[in-house]
């Protein structure tokens, strides 16, 4: 429309908004075709937004704690577990799960919709991640009949270690927890036969430890027996759960049942992990492979421990140079330590899928549960609030909206239609965004979210009201509609941005720091704030620019809501090129009452913004108050008047001004 680059291009902006909306709904529609929401695919796209537990119902999972020693978990354990479960679920999206304890020690988790197996794992597995050195690796099957054969099979991989290990095991079996001095003496004796050169570098480090965790002497006969008896092909041995003692050796299966291990004491705890995330493995030359891995970063303590461990292990023979990552008592990965890793970054590979890698990263981020849980029951539950509540609530909200429309039309006449249209656009955009988000990040609309949206009506409408009032203010100052729209926008924009920024800060802070329902609310608040900005910038303002060009508005039709005469502009306005517009009402007809006259004509062409006052700066007398031209004239007249001028009423004076100025 407008071709000059200096002029505003409202049509272009409106078209941009149109394209945005089309893209929004187009992607949603494409989503429903490509990834439809079905019974099997609860995370798929749908044209309606997902509803939260309170409005739609979902699945109730009852979790029962599993303790290996049969002891009762304490209330503190349960609270801690609820805490961790909530964090894990929150990290998955904004689904507002409901988590509570039931009876003595059960935990009930309510999740909207139908949870996938990953979600159930997320809430029920303990995720105790521990890093242990590998002492011995064996075939997964148990060989109870022939111990020596099994031992040989197990130690085969360990090359010539076996005899050594058994010997030293015998020697030190009784005093595992030897003092450092003992150990230092022991270690060279044990290993000098294999790798004296390597060992010498390790010796100083070992003196600081009470015991070298890689020391094969830890394999006691009982442990060996346990190891032999373990059959990792049996499914019940692959459930995991018991993470074993932290300070001594431990027997574990690989999580896929392909091997069994004897592991040394815990070297690094999962709590030393600072951050974990999942992604595709990046190969050595920067090529992205299609293998899913979990990348972890240790905190400072973990980094140091990890560096020490990799330093020690790298030099050891196989399988002692392997490092087992043990999750809930199962070895998920046991990589060979090839180089010293000084920066505390490690990668866990294993048989991960995208979802299971993400689940593990999530679990590692929020620490382990103090207990492992068993899913006792998993059932569909109905909405906690009746569907009746939502329907009647929406009905009531709709009536409220109708009242808003009536009020806007009453207050702003035809301009009220702009408000209504803007609110309508805001509603459409919000609906689209919520639908897309419930597809992509699992957003669920709860009743609290609905309440947030209703308040958003107020905040969104306020932006228009601020803007319209600014336009009216500018009209009152005597501008044409076109320039009033521009000038009013410049000032309103600042206010709108400032107030929305505050709201947005609130939303972000609450989203990142709060949990549960508060988080869902914060998300809705942030969302509506952004939608508000989009609508004001891309719809209301360009629409006003367009409307300002129509005769109906520009000439200030009484029904337009922008009639300068109704806005108190009673005097003529210079329209340029010698033309004067306005001044339909005789100046002062309404104001000629004695009360108003001086006020209206109180001769101060001073505007509300004080900066403009400098207009009169040149006529001040000395350092006294600056006077306006009219004031100065009045003062001169007073000075020239005879002595009785002192009791001349100010009204008369002002009236004199009026006469003088209206010639």
């Amino acid at each position: 429309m407008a071709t000059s680059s200096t002029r505003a291009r409202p049509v272009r902006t409106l078209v941009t908004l149109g394209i945005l909306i089309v893209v929004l709904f187009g992607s949603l529609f494409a989503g429903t075709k490509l990834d439809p929401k079905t019974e099997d695919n609860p995370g798929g796209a749908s044209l309606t937004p997902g509803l939260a537990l309170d409005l739609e119902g979902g699945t109730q999972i009852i979790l029962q704690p599993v303790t290996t020693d049969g002891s009762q978990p304490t209330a503190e354990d349960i609270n801690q577990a609820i805490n961790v479960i909530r964090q894990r679920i929150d990290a998955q999206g904004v689904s507002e799960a409901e988590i509570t304890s039931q009876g003595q020690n059960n935990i009930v988790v309510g999740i909207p919709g139908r949870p996938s197996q990953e979600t159930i794992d997320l809430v029920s597995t303990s995720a105790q991640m521990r890093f242990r050195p590998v002492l011995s690796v064996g075939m997964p099957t148990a060989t109870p009949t022939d111990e020596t054969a099994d031992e040989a099979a197990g130690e085969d991989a360990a090359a010539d270690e076996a005899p050594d290990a058994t010997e030293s095991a015998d020697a030190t079996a009784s005093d595992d927890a030897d003092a450092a001095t003992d150990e230092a003496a022991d270690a060279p004796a044990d290993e000098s036969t294999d790798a004296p050169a390597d060992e010498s570098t390790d010796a100083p480090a070992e003196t600081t430890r009470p015991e070298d965790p890689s020391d094969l002497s830890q394999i006691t006969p009982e442990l060996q027996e346990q190891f032999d008896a373990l059959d990792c092909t049996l499914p019940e041995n692959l459930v995991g759960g018991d993470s074993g003692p932290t300070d001594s050796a431990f027997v574990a299966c690989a999580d896929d049942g392909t091997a069994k291990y004897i592991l040394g004491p815990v070297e690094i705890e999962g709590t030393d992990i600072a951050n974990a995330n999942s992604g595709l493995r990046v190969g050595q030359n920067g090529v992205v492979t299609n293998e899913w891995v979990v990348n972890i970063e240790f905190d400072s303590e973990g980094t140091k421990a990890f560096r020490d461990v990799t330093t020690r292990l790298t030099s050891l023979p196989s399988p002692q140079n392997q490092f087992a990552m043990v999750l809930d008592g199962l070895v998920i990965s046991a990589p060979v330590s090839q180089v010293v890793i000084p920066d505390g970054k490690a990668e866990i590979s294993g048989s991960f899928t995208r979802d299971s890698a993400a689940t593990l990263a999530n679990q590692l981020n929020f620490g382990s549960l103090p207990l492992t849980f068993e899913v006792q029951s998993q059932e569909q539950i109905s909405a906690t609030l009746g569907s009746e509540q939502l329907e009647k609530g929406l009905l009531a909200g709709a009536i409220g909206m109708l009242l808003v429309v009536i009020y806007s039309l009453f207050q702003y006449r035809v301009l009220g239609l702009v408000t209504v249209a803007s609110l309508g656009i805001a509603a459409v955009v919000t609906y689209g965004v919520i639908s897309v988000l419930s597809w992509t990040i699992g957003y669920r609309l709860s009743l609290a979210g609905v309440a947030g949206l209703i308040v958003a009506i107020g905040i969104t409408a306020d932006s228009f009201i601020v803007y319209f009032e600014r336009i009216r203010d500018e009209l009152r100052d005597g501008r044409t509609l076109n320039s009033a729209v521009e000038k009013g926008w410049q000032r309103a924009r600042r206010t709108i941005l400032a107030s929305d920024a505050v709201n947005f800060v609130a939303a972000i802070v609450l989203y990142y720091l709060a949990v549960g329902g508060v988080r869902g609310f914060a998300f809705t608040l942030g969302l509506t704030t952004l939608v508000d900005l989009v609508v004001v910038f891309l719809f209301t303002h360009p629409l006003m620019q367009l409307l300002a060009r129509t005769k109906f508005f520009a000439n200030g039709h009484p029904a337009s809501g922008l009639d300068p005469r109704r806005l108190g502009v009673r005097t003529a306005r210079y329209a340029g090129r010698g033309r004067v517009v306005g001044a339909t009402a005789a100046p002062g007809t309404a104001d000629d009452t004695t009360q108003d006259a001086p006020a209206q004509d109180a001769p101060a062409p001073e505007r509300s913004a004080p900066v403009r006052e400098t207009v009169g700066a040149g006529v001040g007398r000395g350092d006294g108050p600056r006077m306006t031209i009219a004031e100065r004239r009045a003062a001169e007249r007073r000075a020239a008047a005879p002595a009785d001028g002192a009791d001349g009423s100010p009204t008369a004076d002002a009236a004199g001004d009026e006469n003088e100025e209206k010639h």
Partner: protein
Amino acid sequence: MASGFAQWGNDLYTGRRSYAIVAKRRAYFVVAAVLVVLSLGIIGVRIAGDGLNLGIEFRGGSEFTVSGVSDTSQQPALDAVAAVAPEEVPRVTSVGGSTVRVQTAQLSNAQVEQVATELAGAYGVDAGEVTSSYIGPTWGKDVSQKALVGLVVFLLLVSLVMTVYFRNWRMALAAVIALFHDLVVTVGIYALIGWEITPATVIGLLTILAYSIYDTVVVFDKVRENTAGVLDQTRSTYAERANLAVNQTLVRSINTSVVALLPVAGILFIGAFLLGAGTLRDIALALFVGMAVGAYSSVFLATPLEVELREREKPIRDHTAKVLALRAERTETSGDDEDAALAAAGVAAGSRQLQPGAHQGNKAQPRRRRPR
């Protein structure tokens, strides 16, 4: 009336009509203080009495599971609980196809027995099919704690943002004080009515925080605009400028409040009477009261407070003294015009404003001397 309202808006804008909100600030401070003390008193009485009416989400409660029912409709359960504990509003959920879950606030042992019997009767199952257990809060201490931490960080950050935006920490302080006023008064009124406090209520309160700060920022932005460069002139004081700002945004404040409150009022008055007790009613009440108080406080408390704080700044204090002195001097020497004229126009002292002039048309321009 619309034209009357428009005219009123015009008069407020030009300053012809002006409410001395800032000048009478002490009265508004007293009102606010009384409201806050009353609210705290009500909350205190409630806590000292039977405690705040916290929902099961906060306190935990009793849960009944009725298995093997043929009809999972909710009404029998509601009736059964109402027969034993009339003031209870249970949460009834159907679990699977043949189980009903009923959650109530914690009941005494005798009541639990009674409710179990009633439920068995209502659903026509054996008493053995009804099990009861204690459930913990879904909104535990850690949730409240996290929300509180979030709130404190939010307040600090918002104060920081406002301090940077307005380049004045006193404005941020005034806004935060007004926020506390809103919060306390809303909770007080809620406690007075005595409805159950649910997570929905808490979320309603958080919404109010956001709305209150928002509204205050809009008003303060006008104050900022009007008081920019106030020290460069000697015609009006800072307080008068701020007062004009409040008056000029009054129409906006009223329009916004009405538009924001109408849908909430719809839910509160229509919804509550249609639905009776429920989450929607709780949240609507919290929102309605909070938004009304928030709109009131940003005009009648935040701005006067802001002026009160700003006048402690030395430049502004000196400026105010200078303006008043000059004004007195002028009144003495000229003996008339400005104040008298303004007073005649109905502009009360303390909110005095000059009228903006207007273009007088080309007739007001000096005539060009035509060569003859």
